[in-house]
């Protein structure tokens, strides 16, 4: 995984992608017990294409030129399937901006904050997200005040109450 993360950093350094951070199940695993997953979700700011639209095509093409093939919705980078998720709404954009900088061994990476991962899970709203939120509450160190403000800002307080009931 270290090599995969180094490649991602190179992509950012060469401006093929903008700021990125690990989210999804692997991001959650940073804070809670490890659980089964098969891909690495990378939330990413992408440069706008000539058409004015955000597209993953130039990134996929650059990765293909480096020998990394697509597999379903992922690109397999050094043996790890990476799914690039363009920041798709205000909550995710904010999560990306406020992501934590940490080290994976000696490789600098960013991971979304626990509070943002909780909020994104609430917003996504699947049964597995509900289970993940429960794990966060039980196991993850998080800032309750920060979380409450975040949930209010993104209209998720009511759902939080329902899921915690």
């Amino acid at each position: 995984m270290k090599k995969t993360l180094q490649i991602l950093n190179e992509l950012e350094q060469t401006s093929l992608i903008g700021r990125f951070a690990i989210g999804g199940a692997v991001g959650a695993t940073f804070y809670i017990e490890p659980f089964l997953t098969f891909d690495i979700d990378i939330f990413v700011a992408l440069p706008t294409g000539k058409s004015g639209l955000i597209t993953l095509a130039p990134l996929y093409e650059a990765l293909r030129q480096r020998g990394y093939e697509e597999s379903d919705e992922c690109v397999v980078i050094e043996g790890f399937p990476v799914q690039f998720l363009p920041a798709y709404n205000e909550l995710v954009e904010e999560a990306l901006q406020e992501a934590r900088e940490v080290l994976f061994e000696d490789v600098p990476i960013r991971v979304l904050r626990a509070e943002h991962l909780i909020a994104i899970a609430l917003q996504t709203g699947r049964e597995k997200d509900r289970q993940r939120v429960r794990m966060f509450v039980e196991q993850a160190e998080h800032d309750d005040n920060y979380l409450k403000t975040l949930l209010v800002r993104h209209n998720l307080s009511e759902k939080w109450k329902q899921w915690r009931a």
Partner: protein
Amino acid sequence: MEAMESLTPELERLFAAKEARRHRLAALAFPEKIKAIIKLQEMVAPILRARGKIVRVWGEDCA
């Protein structure tokens, strides 16, 4: 009823141990957690493949 009551302290101990283990796992370093995910993938991959699912264990083709 008596049997259930006699089991309760033992079950409580088991559940507490399980909870403590989950907290220990949550406190592992991130690279150790990634190794644990790969172990989980290796355990579940044969079952999923037997069901016809295409599964890629991380790093499997990079050895």
